[in-house]
């Protein structure tokens, strides 16, 4: 197994996800909640509600992925620090 990781870049990718999640969440606030469509008002309002539901799911997806990448980057940093400390101890003895 080969392993290469740049935690700072993972943080950058996480930031992109988080920014996208914020942009998506902002859409929910501006989404129209009603439309005057006569007999079609019910179905069209239902479509708008579905959009809001889909947006909420996307916010969760993007935010969750960003958070996971941030955790991943930190986990690799912690592991690297622990490994380095262990190696320093081993080589010092």
């Amino acid at each position, binding site marked *: *197994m*080969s*392993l*290469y*990781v*740049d935690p*700072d*870049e*993972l943080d*950058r*990718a*996480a930031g*992109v*996800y988080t*920014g*996208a999640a914020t*942009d*998506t969440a*902002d*859409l929910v606030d*501006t*989404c*129209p909640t009603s*439309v*005057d*469509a*006569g*007999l*079609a*008002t019910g179905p*069209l309002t239902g*479509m*708008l509600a579905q*959009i809001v539901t*889909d947006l909420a799911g*996307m916010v969760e*997806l*993007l935010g969750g*992925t*960003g958070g*996971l*990448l941030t955790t*991943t980057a930190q986990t690799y940093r912690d592991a690297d620090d622990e490994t380095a400390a262990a190696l320093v101890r081993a080589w010092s003895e």
Partner: protein
Amino acid sequence: MPIDTFIAGSPTDIRRVEDWIRTTLGTTIGNVADAAARARRIADDAWEGDASETYLDRSSEHVHAIDDFHARISKTADVFAGLAGELSRALSDMADIRARAAAAGLLAVCNTIGNPPRVTTKPLSEGPWRIKKRTQPPRRCTLAGRSQSQLP
């Protein structure tokens, strides 16, 4: 019986929402899809290992899901645009019908076409054209002329 030509709904309002879906929502989600793809590439370049493969698989699914959502947004906007167009045509048709009814002499108030004006007439039996009761039997006619029995 009056005819009500009222049709509820506003094409303008439907187009307002359609514009939000197509422009605001569509553009933003398009940007979000680009961002998700960019984030995937950044992580792909910065991370190689067993765990990264799992992440890349999942992030690819996310990118596809966002692209699908973007496509659905476009179709939803098309539905709104289609309904706005059909409603607009229906309202125009009703306005045309009202105009034709008014031109024909019917009273069209707001969206309602009124009844034809009442014409007062006397029954036929009361008019000057009253048919007098026949006192003599009718003369019989044939294609050849009067029947012989009716000859003077």
